């Protein structure tokens, strides 16, 4: 039996390589069932959606913190200052010092601001947060973030919620080649095959929300993504064959060179 290595982020070990988000679900019950079916161990929640001062907050209650790493995110923050302020508030309210850093000044495509993200990451790391930054698929930015001490990098496959798959494939490939921290492909993955593709390329994990939450059957889709991630990861470990677009000619075209020299 092949032994599969676990995912290690900062000092924690995870057996699932699928992270899931909690937005866009039709109800908290469906969300909880989908979380279970996904096998995820890390669940991200938008701080803007929860009332940290209320221990009975619906969404906070719905995510069992003994079972999942509760990963608050700063979605909605427009600059570093706002993101940092939000992270501090979440820690003050008793959340683990883990944060999915999202600085998305444009509320339409929700694309991450590289400058403010780097600035925020620097401050947060100094303050002791474990920072998982959401970034565009920019290999240089990924290295810069790694240098300031983020515990992952999370490049996007396509803009959030678009379900378009790995549109940034080539840049993600470079990030994976260069990274010394886990690479979690975040955003835009619309089908289990997209997740499998990212894992086959060597991504350490993926994060999925919209494609699960808005599926006809979110629970079934969560399971499908779990299987897709597993399949992709196992294929990566097993060593994928190289693409061969044409059958190799049985009599090589350059065979004459050898016979001439014979």
């Amino acid at each position: 039996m092949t032994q599969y290595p676990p995912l290690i982020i900062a000092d924690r070990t995870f057996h699932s390589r699928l992270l899931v988000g909690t937005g866009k679900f039709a109800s908290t019950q469906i969300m909880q069932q989908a979380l279970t079916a996904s096998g995820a161990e890390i669940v991200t929640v938008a701080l803007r959606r929860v009332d940290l001062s209320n221990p009975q907050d619906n969404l906070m209650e719905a995510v069992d913190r003994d079972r999942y790493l509760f990963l608050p995110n700063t979605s909605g923050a427009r600059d570093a200052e706002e993101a940092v302020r939000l992270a501090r508030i979440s820690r003050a309210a008793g959340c683990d010092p883990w944060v999915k850093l999202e600085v998305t000044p444009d509320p339409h495509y929700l694309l991450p601001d590289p400058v403010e993200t780097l600035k925020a990451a620097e401050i947060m790391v100094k303050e002791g947060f474990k920072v998982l930054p959401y970034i565009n698929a920019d290999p240089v930015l990924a290295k810069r973030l790694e240098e300031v001490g983020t515990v992952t990098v999370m490049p996007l496959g396509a803009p959030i919620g678009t379900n378009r798959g790995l549109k940034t494939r080539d840049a993600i490939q470079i990030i994976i080649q260069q990274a010394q921290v886990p690479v979690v492909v975040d955003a835009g993955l619309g089908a289990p095959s997209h997740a499998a593709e990212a894992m086959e390329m060597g991504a350490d994990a993926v994060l999925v929300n919209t494609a699960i939450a808005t599926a006809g059957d979110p629970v079934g889709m969560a399971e499908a993504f779990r299987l897709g991630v597993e399949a992709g990861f196992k294929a990566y470990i097993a060593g994928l064959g190289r693409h061969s677009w044409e059958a190799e000619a049985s009599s090589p075209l350059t065979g004459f060179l050898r016979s001439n020299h014979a």
Partner: protein
Amino acid sequence: MSFWQKIIQYRWDRIEAAISRKTAQDVRQAMRAPNPNFDDLLALLSPVAADFLEEMALAAHGLTVQRFGRTIQMFAPVYISSECTNSCVYCGFNRHNQISRATLSVAEVEKEVMFLHRQGFRHVLLLTGESPHHVPVEYLMRIARKLRPLLASISIEIYPLTTNDYRHLIQNGVDGLTVYQETYHIKRYAEVHPAGPKRNYRWRLETPDRGGQAGFRRLNIGVLLGLSDWRVDGAFVGLHAAYLARRYWQSHVSVSFPRLRPAAGGFQPQFPVNDTHLVQLMCALRLWLPDAGLVLSTREPASLRENLLPLGVTQMSAGSKTAPGGYAAKENVEGQFEISDLRSPQEVVRMIAAHGYEPVWKDWDASFLNAAEH
């Protein structure tokens, strides 16, 4: 540069004519377009598009679920004052109407918001008539400071202000601005706003620009359906929303669909908008602006609100009162207009859940704005 420079490049009658010339082929093409252009929007608003309503509705539903999920964000209006210096012919607060008027004290506003807070609301919209004498900007700043600890988001729908005044409000914790042009038809606008500061079309038109420059996180615009031809007004509101989203790229833009309701003064809409028209308008704007918020208020009756829910709506009010003090603070003050959906917020929330949507009470946080630290 403001939307004024943009809108003067368009002529109402030409757009009206272009809409009436659209063919079924134009509509099909518009529905297939990955990035619809203005001509596509006109096709979607045209009379022939009525034959494609079901396809448009399916596409609008699909886009909305993809972008916003199965969620509806809840909010409630809070009227601070019914004093007004304008004489808008359709409005119950028209200064010529002999109604009992009121302006709430800060404590009374707080009492209203406490009432809404107990019902679950964390997003409120503060409204006033246009009377800076009764409700000066400083007064609104005081109210915002007082309400901040109770709320996740405070928006305003008040008389137009300068960019600087908007900045002051933002610093005190107001994050959203709602202002309706009512109608983009310049002559019609003058007819229905015969006197008062609101007569100034351009000042009002540029209000969302000033709000965007000041840094509001949410800009909400709309037309008052019934004042002019909804197809042309729909095209202009679509154009305006797209302009704002592009220019103030850090603000989220949403569009409301207020239909004229009975109010003191007894104004009758000259261009009535029926339910089919409303559906077509909502779907057309969703296809034109996949990321825009679409807001539906209690002006619409309960049954229609249920049916409109899956067509692209992202925000809903519930249990609304349109009189200052109407929730808890006062009795016997008249409202701006009659609301139609009289159900309690809890009933509306149950309806939303029964349709497979999650009602979201909080989708913002006061700590985003710097004001939180003051």
